[in-house]
């Protein structure tokens, strides 16, 4: 298909799957596709030929797809600071807030893909982020990387590609239909905004769990 001829006028926007209606989507001229932009704490899955984009500081994005079905998605998460167990050692900290939250973020994405028909054993994972973007912050990115590596090893998922760590933010564009990732390491100029956004996200993670997380039936 000649992508030069594609536009928002000629390419209808596929409806977002239930639960993903609030994710902002826009026409990306250079990708010649509709793009979903996810923010910290969000994730998005699609069965259509579109692009998912995000900007990462110390957060991690897992880009996961089933190559046989052409469906995939991306999350964007970080681990909350856990003062109850200290360092997020995996086995010792399996009940820790950090591990519970990180596993929830990963499982949410995998579950939605499986609901679309993805086969767990076929899932291909690409990882990005975990940068050390501010020298004054503790190395949150390294903890996020350690978590996601251990989680994926335990779950038996294969990592097809990754670009993690270093001291830069990243702009990621993921094409789930093909598995292609367009990655741009950003300059320090953009660090402050990204760090502020992640700090706000981190504060939200520390807020008490909503009371409706348990429902007892009579």
């Amino acid at each position, binding site marked *: 298909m000649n992508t030069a001829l594609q536009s928002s006028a000629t390419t209808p926007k596929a409806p977002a799957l239930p639960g993903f209606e609030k994710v902002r989507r826009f026409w990306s001229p250079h990708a010649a596709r509709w793009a979903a932009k996810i923010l910290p704490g969000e994730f998005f899955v699609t069965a259509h030929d579109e692009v998912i984009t995000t900007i990462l500081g110390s957060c991690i994005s897992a880009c996961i797809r089933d190559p046989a079905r052409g469906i995939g998605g991306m999350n964007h998460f970080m681990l909350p600071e856990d003062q109850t167990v200290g360092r997020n050692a995996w086995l010792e900290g399996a009940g820790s807030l950090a591990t519970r*939250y990180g596993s929830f973020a990963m499982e949410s994405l995998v579950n939605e893909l499986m609901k679309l028909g993805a086969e767990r054993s076929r899932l291909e994972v690409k990882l990005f982020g975990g940068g050390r973007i501010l020298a004054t912050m503790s190395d949150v990115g390294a903890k996020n990387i350690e978590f996601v590596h251990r989680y994926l090893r335990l779950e038996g998922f294969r990592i097809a590609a990754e670009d993690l760590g270093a001291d830069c933010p990243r702009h990621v564009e993921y094409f789930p239909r093909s598995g292609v990732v367009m990655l741009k390491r950003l300059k320090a100029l953009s660090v402050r905004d990204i760090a502020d956004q992640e700090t706000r996200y981190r504060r939200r993670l520390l807020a008490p769990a909503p009371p409706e997380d348990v429902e007892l039936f009579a």
Partner: protein
Amino acid sequence: MSSCLHERNYNRRLPGRPTVKILIIDDSTAMRMIVRKTLRLAGFEGHEFVEAEDGAKGLAAITAAAPDLVLSDWNMPNMTGIELLEKLNQTGVKVPFGFVTTEVTPDMRQRAAAAGAHFVVAKPFTPESFRDALGAFIR
């Protein structure tokens, strides 16, 4: 397979028992580990844990291990958690059953309650979530 056998096994009153056998069904190895650890953090120490990685294997484990309580994920390959509970109902197997699940919609709550689930705990849960949900079943 006789369902009467199961009813006899599962109708025991739980709070009086010193040790409770808990079956954790989840397709995520990490999540099964986290559930087990969080139960311990919630104060449910000294109990026996059995694990299964999907609904179909959970069904087999219920037959083989006769658990006192089942904690099941909802979305799983082969047989989902709610399909498992509905299957137990069809075959007359009675075992206290609760969901620990990533996604909780009003429809899911309604279907879980209608099938006789005792509770739904949403991930990412806390030790307090488990104390609230399981307090009636385990000491």
